[in-house]
């Protein structure tokens, strides 16, 4: 009997864990729809969920193409940012002089709200894909540098002693201890980087583009096409979730030995 009771309680907990967020979300959308209809709020002020769904099928906007442009920029920038960030993290952990030389720039970039650079990049590099990607690189490389350099440094002292006692050199210690130790830190940085990449793509399109979801949002503002802007928000939310989920899946695949928390 006790066993049955436990099973029931467990499954109830499980049900609550998975269904409560879903119920909350669906209820929110329904409430939203009802409030809009009840108060007859015009779509150009605040569109209803059904209006947003309709906007994907009206044919004025090529949603797939616009999404692809933004996603392409975000992913290109993120990949470059991650590579650059990782390289800088390795350099500043391995070389004390280089760390000291680069530190002021890293700290300055850390405190600067990086999107503020966007209009200037546009002046320097013009109305180009390069300038958009560069802003995304700046936004993504940063969390990688911070997290990976922590992961490369924050190692169990005893493991270093162990390898030194076996007469291992710096290279062996790097590849056998520091690098694997940094993996969980890297993935934490990557989670921040992918959301930064989307922010960067949108801001870059605000200032220097004539296509993509960011341009679409800006354009909606001028034309009072609020529904289209909400369509773009919806797609960006889904993209953000998918990128975040991809990072988590990748982390699970590459680190079966890791459990967070």
């Amino acid at each position, binding site marked *: 009997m006790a066993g049955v009771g436990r099973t029931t309680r467990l499954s109830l907990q499980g049900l609550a864990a998975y269904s409560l967020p879903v119920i909350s979300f669906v209820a929110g959308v329904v409430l939203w729809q009802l409030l809009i209809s009840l108060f007859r709020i015009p779509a150009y002020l605040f569109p209803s969920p059904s209006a947003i769904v309709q906007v994907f099928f009206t044919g004025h906007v090529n949603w797939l193409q616009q999404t692809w442009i933004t996603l392409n920029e975000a992913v290109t920038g993120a990949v470059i940012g991650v590579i650059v960030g990782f390289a800088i993290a390795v350099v500043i952990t391995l070389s004390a002089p280089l760390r000291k030389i680069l530190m002021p720039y890293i700290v300055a970039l850390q405190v600067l709200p990086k999107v503020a650079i966007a209009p200037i990049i546009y002046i320097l590099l013009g109305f180009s894909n390069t300038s958009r990607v560069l802003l995304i690189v700046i936004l993504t490389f940063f969390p990688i540098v911070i997290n990976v350099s922590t992961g490369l440094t924050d190692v*169990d002292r*005893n*493991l270093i*002693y*162990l*390898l*030194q*006692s*076996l*007469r*291992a050199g710096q290279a*062996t210690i790097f590849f*056998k*201890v520091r690098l*694997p*130790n940094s*993996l969980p830190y890297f993935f934490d940085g990557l989670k921040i980087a992918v959301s930064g990449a989307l922010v960067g793509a949108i801001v870059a399109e605000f200032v220097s583009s004539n296509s993509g979801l960011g341009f679409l949002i800006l354009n909606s503002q001028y034309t009072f096409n609020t529904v289209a802007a909400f369509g773009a928000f919806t797609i960006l939310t889904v993209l953000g979730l998918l990128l975040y989920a991809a990072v988590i899946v990748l982390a699970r695949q590459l*680190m*079966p*030995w*890791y*459990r967070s928390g």
Partner: protein
Amino acid sequence: MASVVVLENVGKRYTTVKGKEIHAVKDVSLSVQTGETVGIVGPSGCGKSTLLRLIAGVERPSSGSIHREAAGGHFIVGYVFQDSSLMRWRTVYDNIKLPLEVVKKRDLGNVDRLIDLIGMKGFERSYPIELSGGMQRRVSIARAFVHEPSIILMDEPFTGVDELTKEALQTELGNLIRTLRATALLVTHDIEEAVFLSDRIFVMSPRPGAIVEEIPVNLPAVRDASTRSNLEFVAAAGRVRAKLLELHAMRVEAAT
């Protein structure tokens, strides 16, 4: 009998980040002979871990000298740490294999032999996170033996393990040392642990750690649970305890 390591008047001073000088180890002279297990007992902070780092060669003494004898080949240590310090990204098998990779030994036969000896067959592919605390200690011990080191250095290997598991692990470790005819140096603040595993014990004073007494342990080589009620076991533990208490009292007196 040949010595494996000989320490002559070894001292170690550290300068802290604030510029304060810390005299961690003072004037330590001792030797460890092939095949014996030597225990060093002292209060925490007296320089035990420092002494092991000096012997392992990862730090240099500020004064005195350390002679390391290599029996056919070069001197190399096996290291067991207080909190097992396994690589969490490596399986049991790969953790034990690590020293062989670093010293570039091709023959991996010892890995399987040790997994067998520590009773961890079937867990080769498990990660540290999937093991109990006791199992993690076993793996870290196997890692220390796998490359057949000249001496096994053990730094409070069972701190934080519950009492019953600790006694079982101590018995297993003693058997492993005997089976593999290893030479070992054990530092600990656990008096019973030192007596159970050692052939002789050095008592260390509080910082600056100096060796103040050598106490022989006249117990048979083969030891098990019954050894703990052996009269000689109780007597040796009593002598170590008395010396530590005396040192403690002296320090309290000096401070008041």
